[in-house]
C-alpha cells in the first residue's frame, strides 16, 4: 500500500514540529531544575566572585557603563530580597566595588549599597568604605557624606565623626540648609534624642524608597520612645526629690505639676513606673539602657532592628 | 596606429618572496591588433589569455615588456576611456536591475543622463533583454548575464572591445547572437579582441588569430592557414558492399575498423593512407560512400603542444 505523497509530507512536517516541541520542553524543564539547583542565595553569592574591577574594566572594551549596569541589575534583585543576616550581604561590597570601578560615577549604586550595608546588614565598615569611594569619585554629591554621617551617628555611635561628614555634606551644592545646624548639634549635644529625631526626620523626608522609609520610621519611633522615657525618668527623679518617694503611677506627676501630660507611646503602648523608679513601656519589655547615647541603643543587637 | 600593440610581454607570479619559485604566466609575448579587425586569441585553459587581457586593461601589471591600448600605455587610466570589456563568466552586482546596472556603467563612463537612458534602451534591445529591464541580475540566467555584460561593455560606444571567452556557457542561439553582434561591430569600424578556446567560434568571424600555449605565442596569422597546416588528424572512410574481413591489408594499418551491416567504417591516421585504403576497397568491389578528413580542433593541437617539451619549430617560424 502506498501512502499518498501529500499525507507523507504532512506526517514528516508534523513529526518535525513534535520534535521541536519536545526539545524545547525538555530544555524548559532542565532549566527549571537548574534553577532549583541554584537558589537565589547562591546566585547572589556568585557576585562575590566577580573579577576585580581593573580587569573587568579592560574586558569591557569601552562599554563599561553597560557592564556596570548589568552587575547592578543583578545586585538589585538580591538586595531587594532583604536578607536578614549580616552574612546574606557578604557579596554586596565586592559587587558594588567592582561595578563602581567600572563606572565610578554610578552614584545610585553607592547610595543604595551604602544604605543597605549599614541599615540592614550592619556591615558598617563596608558601608562607610563604599560611600567614601563614592565621595572620592563624586565629590559634588552631598548625599554620600550625609549617608556616612548617618551611619556614624546611628550605627556606630560616633557623633563627632558623623558631624565631620555632615559638615562636608552641608557645603556641597544642593545640600539642605539644616545640615550645618544638624552637624553642630551632633558635636555639642551628642546624646540628645531630640537631635536624633530631627536627623531621622530629615533623612526620611528625602528618601523615596518605601522599604527604607519603613525602617527609618520604625527607628524614629524608638528614638521618640526613648526620648519620652527619658523625659519621664527625669520627672520621676524630680518627683522623688520633692516627695521622697517614687510615684505610684505616672499620672501622679501630672497632678504634682511636674509634667504637663504623659506623652503618647509611638508604638501604642502605655508608660508605667516600676517600684525602683524606672519608667517602662508596655509596648517594649526590654528597654536597652546599656549605652549613654540614645543613638547607640541598638548597637549590640543590630539584627534586632533590621528584622522589625 | 594599431589598436593593440604588445611587445615582449612577460608576467610571472609569486616572485615577491625569494623562497618561492615564480610561475611564468606569459613569456615574451608580442602581437598587434589592427584597427577595425576581429582578432581571436586562442589557447587552452590556463595558457595566459586572461592574463594578457588583464594586463591590457590595467587589472594586472606586466613583469616586463610593454603593451599599448589605442596608443596609450596599458594601465594608464585614460587608455581605458574608449575600451569596453566583458570578463569571462561575468560576475556583476547582482542586486542591481539590468537598467540600473547599465546606468551605473554609463555614469562611470561619464555619459550624461539623457544619453544613458537612450543607450540603455538601445543596448537592451540589441542584446534582446528589453523585457528584463527592471529585473534584478540575480534572477538572470547565465546566458542573460553574458548578454547584459556585453551591453555593459558597449554602453559608451567604445572603439575597442575586449571580450574574454564571450561564447562560453551559451546555448547555440546565444552563440549565434553574440557572433552576429561581434560581426556587426566590425561593420561599424570597431576593433574586437577576444579570447576563446573553441575553434569553431573563432573560425567563422576572425580576421586573424593568435595561438597561445603555456604563455608563449605559438602562431599568429589567418586561421585557415594555421589549421590547414596542421593537416588532418584522422580520416573516416565509409564504404559499402564489402566486408572488413576482405580487407586485411588496410585493417592491419587502420586506427579503427567497424562493420555495421552492409557498411563498414575505416579510420586511418593520415591523408596519405587514403589512397591505399581506397584501392583495396575497390579491388574487393566495394563502393566508397564518404571520406571525411577530421581536422584536429585547436585543443588537440594545444594538447600536443602542451605535452611536447618544445613548440613545433615550424609553427614557431611562422610567428616572425
Amino acid at each position: 500500500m502506498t501512502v499518498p505523497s501529500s499525507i507523507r509530507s504532512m506526517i514528516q512536517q508534523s513529526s518535525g514540529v513534535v520534535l521541536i516541541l519536545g526539545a524545547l520542553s525538555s530544555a524548559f524543564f532542565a532549566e527549571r531544575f537548574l534553577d532549583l539547583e541554584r537558589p537565589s542565595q547562591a546566585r547572589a553569592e556568585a557576585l562575590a566572585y566577580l573579577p576585580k574591577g581593573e580587569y573587568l574594566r579592560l574586558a569591557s572594551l569601552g562599554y563599561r557603563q553597560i557592564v556596570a549596569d548589568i552587575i547592578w541589575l543583578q545586585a538589585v534583585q538580591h538586595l531587594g530580597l532583604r536578607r536578614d543576616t549580616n552574612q546574606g550581604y557578604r557579596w554586596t561590597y565586592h559587587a558594588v566595588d567592582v561595578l563602581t570601578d567600572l563606572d565610578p560615577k554610578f552614584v545610585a549604586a553607592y547610595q543604595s549599597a551604602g544604605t543597605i550595608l549599614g541599615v540592614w546588614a550592619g556591615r558598617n565598615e563596608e558601608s562607610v568604605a563604599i560611600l567614601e569611594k563614592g565621595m572620592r569619585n563624586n565629590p559634588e554629591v552631598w548625599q554620600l557624606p550625609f549617608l556616612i554621617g548617618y551611619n556614624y551617628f546611628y550605627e556606630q555611635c560616633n557623633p563627632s565623626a558623623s558631624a565631620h561628614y555632615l559638615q562636608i555634606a552641608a557645603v556641597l551644592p544642593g545640600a539642605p540648609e539644616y545640615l550645618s545646624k544638624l552637624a553642630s548639634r551632633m558635636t555639642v549635644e551628642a546624646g540628645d534624642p531630640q537631635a536624633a529625631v530631627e536627623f531621622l526626620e530629615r533623612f526620611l523626608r528625602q528618601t523615596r524608597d518605601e522599604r527604607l522609609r519603613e525602617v527609618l520610621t520604625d527607628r524614629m519611633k524608638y528614638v521618640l520612645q526613648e526620648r519620652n522615657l527619658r523625659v519621664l525618668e527625669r520627672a520621676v527623679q524630680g518627683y522623688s526629690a520633692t516627695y521622697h518617694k517614687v510615684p505610684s503611677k505616672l499620672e501622679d506627676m501630672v497632678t504634682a505639676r511636674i509634667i504637663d501630660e504623659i506623652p503618647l507611646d509611638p508604638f501604642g503602648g502605655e508608660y508605667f513606673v516600676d517600684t525602683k523608679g524606672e519608667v517602662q513601656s508596655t509596648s517594649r519589655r526590654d528597654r536597652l539602657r546599656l549605652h549613654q547615647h540614645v543613638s547607640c541603643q541598638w548597637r549590640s543587637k543590630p539584627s534586632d532592628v533590621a528584622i522589625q | 596606429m594599431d589598436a593593440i600593440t604588445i611587445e615582449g610581454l612577460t608576467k610571472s607570479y609569486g616572485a615577491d618572496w625569494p623562497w618561492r619559485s615564480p610561475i611564468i604566466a606569459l613569456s615574451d609575448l608580442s602581437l598587434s591588433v589592427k584597427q577595425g579587425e576581429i582578432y581571436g586569441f586562442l589557447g587552452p585553459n590556463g595558457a595566459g589569455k586572461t592574463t594578457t587581457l588583464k594586463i591590457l586593461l590595467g587589472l594586472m601589471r606586466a613583469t616586463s615588456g610593454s603593451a599599448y591600448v589605442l596608443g596609450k600605455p596599458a594601465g594608464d587610466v585614460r587608455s581605458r576611456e574608449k575600451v569596453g570589456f566583458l570578463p569571462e563568466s561575468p560576475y556583476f552586482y547582482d542586486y542591481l536591475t539590468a537598467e540600473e546596472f547599465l546606468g551605473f556603467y554609463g555614469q562611470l563612463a561619464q555619459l550624461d543622463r539623457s544619453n544613458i537612458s537612450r543607450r540603455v534602451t538601445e543596448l537592451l534591445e540589441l542584446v534582446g533583454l528589453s523585457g528584463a529591464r527592471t529585473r534584478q541580475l540575480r534572477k538572470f540566467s547565465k546566458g542573460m548575464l553574458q548578454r547584459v555584460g556585453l551591453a555593459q561593455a558597449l554602453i559608451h560606444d567604445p572603439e575597442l572591445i575586449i571580450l574574454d571567452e564571450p561564447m562560453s556557457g551559451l546555448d547555440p542561439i546565444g552563440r549565434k547572437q553574440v557572433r552576429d553582434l561581434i560581426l556587426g561591430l566590425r561593420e561599424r569600424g570597431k576593433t574586437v579582441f577576444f579570447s576563446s578556446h573553441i575553434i569553431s567560434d573563432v573560425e567563422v568571424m576572425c580576421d586573424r588569430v593568435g595561438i597561445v600555449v603555456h604563455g608563449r605565442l605559438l602562431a599568429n596569422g589567418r586561421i585557415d592557414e594555421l589549421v590547414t597546416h596542421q593537416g588532418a588528424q584522422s580520416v573516416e572512410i565509409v564504404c559499402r558492399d564489402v566486408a572488413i574481413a576482405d580487407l586485411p591489408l588496410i585493417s592491419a594499418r587502420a586506427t579503427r575498423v567497424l562493420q555495421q551491416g552492409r557498411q563498414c567504417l575505416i579510420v586511418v591516421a593520415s591523408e596519405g593512407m587514403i589512397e591505399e585504403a581506397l584501392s583495396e576497397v575497390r579491388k574487393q568491389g566495394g563502393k566508397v560512400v564518404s571520406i571525411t578528413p577530421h581536422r584536429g580542433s585547436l585543443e588537440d593541437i594545444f594538447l600536443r603542444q602542451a605535452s611536447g617539451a618544445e613548440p613545433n619549430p615550424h609553427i614557431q617560424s611562422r610567428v616572425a
Partner: protein
Amino acid sequence: MQAIAVIALNTFRENLRDKILYNLVFFAVLLIGLSVLLADLTIMEHHRMIKDLGLAAINLVGVIIAIFVGIGLVNKEIERRTVYTIMARPISRTTFILGKYCGLGLTLLINVLVMLSVFLAILGLYGVPITWTLFQAVQLVFVEMLLITALALLFSTFSSSTLSAIFTLAFYVIGHLIGDLKGLMENSQTVVLRRAVAGLYYLCPNLEMLNIKGQAAIGVAVPVTYQTLASAYGLSYAVASIVLACMVFQRRDF
C-alpha cells in the same frame, strides 16, 4: 570626483539592498524593550540605564556594521570579480577605494542618525532630560566608526574577509585596551616591554579617546576643544589607513 560619488552611491545602494539597515529594527526593538523592562527601577537608575543602553547600542551596532561590511568592501569585489568591469573603466584605483569608503560612510551616517532619533524619541517618551552631551558622545562614536571602517577597508585590500575581520577586531580591542595597558606598563621594570607598549600606543588608535559615553550619560560635557581634537585624532588615523589602503590596492593584481 564624480566617479567617487557614483561608486559611493552604488555602494550605499548595495548596502540598502543587502538589507543592512534592517539592523535598525533590531536596535529599536532592543532599546524599547529593555526600557520597558527596566521601568521597575527607581527613576534615577532608569534614566541612567536608558541613556547608557542607548549610547552603547548605537556604538555597538555602528561598530559591528563598520567591521562586517567594511571587511567585504574591497575584498568581496575581488572575490566576486565584480571589480574587473569597474577597473576596466577609466577609473583610478584611488577613486574606487574612496568611492567604496564614502559609500559605507554614508550608510553609517544614515544608520547613526536614525538610531539617534529612535534613542531621543525613547528618552522623550520616558521624560528623560536630553542633554547636549548625548550628541557629543554620538558624534565621537561616529568618528570611531569612520576609523574602524577605514581600518577594515585597509585590511580588506590585502586579505580575505575572515582575516580582515580578525585584524579589524584585534585593532578594535587593542584600541580600547591600549590606554589602560600603557598605564599598567609604566611601572614595569622591563624597559623593552615598556617601550614596546609605548610603541604600540602610538601605532594603534587609542579608541578610548573617542569614548565619552559614560560622562555623556550623566550630562557632563567635554570641552569643545577636546571634541575637536579627538575628532581630528580619529580622522587622522582614518586618513592614514585610507591612504595606505590606496597604496596597497594600487599594487594589487586581480
